[in-house]
């Protein structure tokens, strides 16, 4: 029964923070809500018996990909509006909602970890099984994904390099 309650809490947090993220004016605020939504989705993954996917969601989605967003928002500097926004960040109504949602997620985490048998509601799929499938029948897909990542790397390098030469240099 606890798993069901935790699942509905996590999905509500995910939906609410996604809606809040897509209705913000400031992109940095939206990113905070989006990270919260991804963490809530990671809790959902954990509860439906996919702990490896949950770890990947936190490490790659909420970690690496969101850091890319944060870097780009930092590069597009806010200029003179930056100081005003910095002052606004100190007002409580800016950060009170993400803090409440994050505290709810933290409560869920403590509840899940305090259980003796952690969330084995339906057959747990271990990372070993995922690895066996990934390098067994799906090895061609892994190769294609590596080529896609290579193409993404070259494309991002190309777009960023021209920016440095023409815009940043002069």
């Amino acid at each position, binding site marked *: 029964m606890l798993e*069901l309650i935790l699942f509905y809490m996590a999905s509500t947090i995910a939906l609410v923070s996604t809606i809040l993220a*897509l209705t913000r004016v400031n992109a940095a605020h939206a*990113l905070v809500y989006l990270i919260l939504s*991804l963490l809530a989705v990671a809790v959902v993954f954990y509860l439906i018996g996919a702990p490896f996917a949950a770890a990947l969601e936190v490490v790659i*989605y909420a970690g690496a990909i969101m850091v890319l*967003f944060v870097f780009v928002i930092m590069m597009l500097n806010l200029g003179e509006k930056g100081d005003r926004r910095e002052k606004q960040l100190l007002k409580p109504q800016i950060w009170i909602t993400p803090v409440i949602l994050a505290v709810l997620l933290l409560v869920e985490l403590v509840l899940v970890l305090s259980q003796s048998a952690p969330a084995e509601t339906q057959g747990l799929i271990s990372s070993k099984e995922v690895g066996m499938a990934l390098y067994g029948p799906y090895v061609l897909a892994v190769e294609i994904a590596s080529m896609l990542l290579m193409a993404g790397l070259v494309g991002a390098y190309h777009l960023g390099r021209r*920016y440095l030469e023409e815009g940043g240099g002069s």
Partner: protein
Amino acid sequence: MDGVSIPLDHVLLLASLLFICGLLGLMMRRNVIFILISLEVMLNASAVAFVAAGARWGQADGQVIFMLILAVAAAEVAVGLGLVIQIQRRFKSLDMDDADRLRG
């Protein structure tokens, strides 16, 4: 423990609601950063559906597809953010309606 397992329908409902949020955001927002964020939300929603289906049938295939979606999302974000920097430099704004030269 099967009596209290999370129903697949509800996870799929969560995935479709997240996807609808992302789709509405994609259609309503004109800021490039928010368009990329909406794309991320939609990719994430489809990943939820895959993982839920994989967990329902006890197969690892859902999580394999999830990892492929992660790779697609990472490549898409890298190129998309490079484009965001270019758009900011050329048009001095992040509004997509400024970058409508292809409309003719």
